[in-house]
């Protein structure tokens, strides 16, 4: 991007929103990696006792900014003032000592150490080189008490705790360092719905003690509930600073992030209802503890969406249909023929393809060229007598790359170098080769920026128009409603509603999805 393309002018809201003293001030911070300006002039002001929300799309520079604050990266230029003094943290320990603690999305805990050992990792209370276990346990108990979780035993192994408990241990670690600023990178992403309320309660207690919190989340409703002020990043630049979190209109926030005013753009549905031949028939599929008695159908050319929370059994269901998990009961048939249970090979041969939830760990060979990732499921078909036909593979991958508008287009580059959205195109593109008749998509737009999302929606709709059946899982209700022809709502491992997408609205689905977890506690 060029210097003229500086986007919207910086908006500064009046300063009286929060009363505390300024603990952190960033001025014109720039951080460049070879070939990319990850931070290109960031302004940020955080006051004691506030929850300051950072908002921005993937690639906006949030993670880089966190890493600058946490002492992982050093800025190339600009000022970082911490409690009135200009600072440059040499390493994460220096930031920790100064009182800045970071809780990353992938919690960095040692699973086989105890809660107390994790809380005081690297600065255990000690005497003559021996850890004072009693003191450590006592201080851990104190901190857990401050966090309102005195019930967690300091001696418990972290491995034995649920995700929410682990997050509390991470916070305990921050407090053990006497942190004045705690940075939380999408803390709600690992939590079930009812645990988020508890997280907010803890955050409020921390801020009441004068601790500042930088809160990163993609969920606007959370920002409204917990945040005081919002700073919006776009392309490594601050596009709006210190907006009041509660009453800035969503439209304004989104437009600062994107330069657009709509977040979801879905292609139109074809007018005639899909009445293709029945492709996928699932009867009474059950896996103990995950989902029970699920029956569903997907016709050729139809997009069927499954809405449900993390833990509702939707991803497990998808993987079982695909043969990656073996069902306890029930059957999966493709075009009337029963598939061998628990065999991915059988599913693929029958014409199924899947884009799994975790792109990097489940779908891609990151160091391998793009074309080899595109042909990962089909290279054997292009081979002659076991010898691969690399020319043909490149040509096919090239065709896919062109039709999906992959950027960069050179299919010999390692997949590692692509952005999230383009990596997802590679995964979906894999199944456009060969004779895929049914595509299973698990969270196809996770970590994909808004522009690439719209393109992916077009691709998926285009596939259906070409006669491919699509079974789609997403945590984002608008996505399911906007894209699917027919919607199944899952809760606690069961399908609780099935209807054409046109007959459902977002609130109805959200109610159905969350009813159980709000009233009766977390799903098993």
């Amino acid at each position: 991007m060029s210097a003229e393309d500086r986007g919207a002018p910086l908006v500064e809201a009046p300063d009286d929103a929060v009363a505390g003293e300024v603990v952190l001030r960033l001025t014109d911070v720039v951080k460049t990696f070879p070939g990319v300006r990850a931070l290109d002039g960031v302004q940020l002001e955080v006051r004691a006792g506030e929850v300051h929300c950072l908002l921005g799309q993937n690639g906006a520079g949030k993670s880089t900014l966190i890493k600058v604050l946490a002492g992982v990266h050093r800025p190339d230029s600009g000022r970082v003032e911490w409690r009135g003094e200009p600072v440059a943290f040499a390493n994460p320990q220096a930031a920790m000592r100064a009182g800045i603690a970071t809780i990353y999305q992938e919690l960095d805990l040692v699973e086989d150490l105890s809660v107390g050992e994790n809380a005081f990792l690297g600065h255990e209370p000690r005497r003559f080189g021996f850890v004072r276990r009693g003191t450590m346990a006592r201080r851990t108990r104190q901190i857990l008490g401050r966090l309102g979780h005195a019930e967690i035993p300091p001696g418990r192994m972290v491995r034995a705790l649920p995700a929410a408990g682990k997050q509390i241990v991470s916070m305990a670690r921050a407090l053990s360092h006497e942190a004045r600023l705690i940075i939380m990178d999408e803390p709600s992403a690992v939590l079930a719905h009812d645990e988020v309320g508890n997280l907010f309660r803890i955050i409020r207690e921390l801020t009441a003690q004068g601790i500042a919190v930088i809160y990163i989340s993609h969920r606007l409703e959370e920002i409204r509930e917990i945040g005081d002020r919002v700073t919006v990043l776009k392309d490594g630049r601050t596009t709006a600073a210190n907006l009041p979190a509660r009453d800035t209109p969503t439209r304004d926030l989104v437009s600062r992030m994107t330069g657009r005013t709509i977040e979801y753009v879905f292609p139109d549905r074809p007018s005639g209802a899909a009445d293709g031949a029945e492709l996928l028939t699932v009867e009474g599929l059950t896996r103990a503890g995950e989902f029970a008695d699920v029956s569903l159908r997907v016709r050729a050319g139809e997009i069927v969406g499954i809405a449900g929370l993390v833990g509702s059994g939707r991803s497990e269901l998808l993987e079982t249909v695909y043969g990656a998990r073996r069902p306890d009961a029930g059957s999966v048939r493709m075009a009337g023929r029963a598939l061998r249970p628990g065999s991915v090979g059988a599913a693929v041969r029958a014409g199924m393809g899947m884009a799994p939830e975790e792109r990097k760990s489940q779908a891609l060979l990151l160091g391998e060229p793009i074309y080899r990732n595109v042909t990962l499921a089909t290279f054997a078909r292009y081979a002659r007598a076991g010898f691969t036909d690399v020319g043909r593979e490149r040509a096919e991958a090239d065709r896919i790359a062109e039709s999906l508008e992959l950027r960069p287009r050179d299919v010999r580059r390692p997949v590692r170098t692509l952005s999230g959205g383009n990596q997802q195109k590679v995964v979906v593109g894999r199944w456009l080769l060969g004779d895929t008749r049914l595509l299973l998509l698990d969270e196809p737009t996770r970590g994909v920026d808004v522009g690439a999302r719209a393109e992916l929606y077009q691709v998926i709709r285009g596939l259906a128009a070409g006669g491919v059946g699509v079974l789609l899982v997403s945590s984002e209700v608008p996505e399911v409603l906007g894209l699917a022809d027919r919607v199944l709502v899952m809760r606690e491992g069961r399908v609780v509603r099935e209807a054409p997408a046109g007959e459902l609205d977002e609130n109805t689905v959200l109610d159905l999805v969350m009813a159980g977890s709000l009233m009766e506690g977390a799903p098993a």
Partner: protein
Amino acid sequence: MTEGPTPTAAPERAAQLPAQSPPVDPAETAGAVHKVAAQGRISWWRGDGGEGVRRNLGLLGVLVVLIVIGALTRSDLYSDPDWVWDNVLSILKLAAVVGVVTVGMTFVIIGGGIDLSVGAIVALAGVWCTTVATQSYGAGGMIFSALTVGVAVGLVNGLLISYGRLVPFIATLAMLVAARGLAAEISDKQTQVSDNTFINGLASNHLLGIPLLVYILAAVVAAGWVLLNRTTFGRRTVAVGGNPEAARLAGINVRRHTVLLYALSGLCCGIAAIMLTAQANSAQAAMANLYELDAIAAAIIGGTLLSGGRGTIIGSLLGVVIFATITNLFAINGLSTEAQNMVKGGIIVAAVLVQQVQFRSLTQFLGRNRLTT
């Protein structure tokens, strides 16, 4: 296809995506190939392994340095061209047996595993093929039994790891102990002399002035290179080692492939057993001692990633040859094996350090288009 106005700037072309792979038009395919070639101008021999080729050129440089050191320290010997030729052949002969084992090991490591039992398999196969009973079937019987024993033991390794879900380190460590035990049992701890002139001749005979053992090494390396770089088996190996979950969800039978990898390693051990038996004119339970370490070290020096998914056959071959050259360098200078082992240890560490630096700068270089979040 979508009708009516699309409320977005999203490209129309994406919407017109061909849903099914259309029947392949040969002309179109050829055109696309031509376009790719024009974009990249990649030579066939380089293929996609640009990074691996650069690394291997570095190893070649190390080899040249070692030879120069040899020439400087023993300039008296190096002044005789006949001696130099003989010395090259003796280095290659030294590398031949371990080289064959290393080719199998390279596949196993790229596939995400490790095989600690290779030395023991060589010993077991060697002992098995030199029993009086086996020798009575002649050279064909001996070769058949060595290869069969190698493959069978490899299959057991693979099955234990794939279907018994044992960690490769443990399964092959157990096999290391067990196979040597069985070899000692069969041979009654005696050295079994090979009377077969064809087998023994593999080590002593030459073709065009080059020992037959070196031809065997060349054949195995060539076959290994083709298998890794030009076949679906090789592609599966990289996929299974690079990301087993992705491979599985792409429909690759990861378990079966893992079994095949260990069987392949066993096959290479069977070949090596015949070569080693030929060299010594005999076999015994203690033969091929610590070959597993030599093979792993050579593969690692050659740039094979111990966590799987990356490696080259040529790199492994260069690793083996570098080791043999060091041994030779110490021998011609009359230095002790102890000093030699220390140098080898240092070389392993240095090679990995250099590769890490290269890899880091490379990923930074490639990261220039990455969107940093």
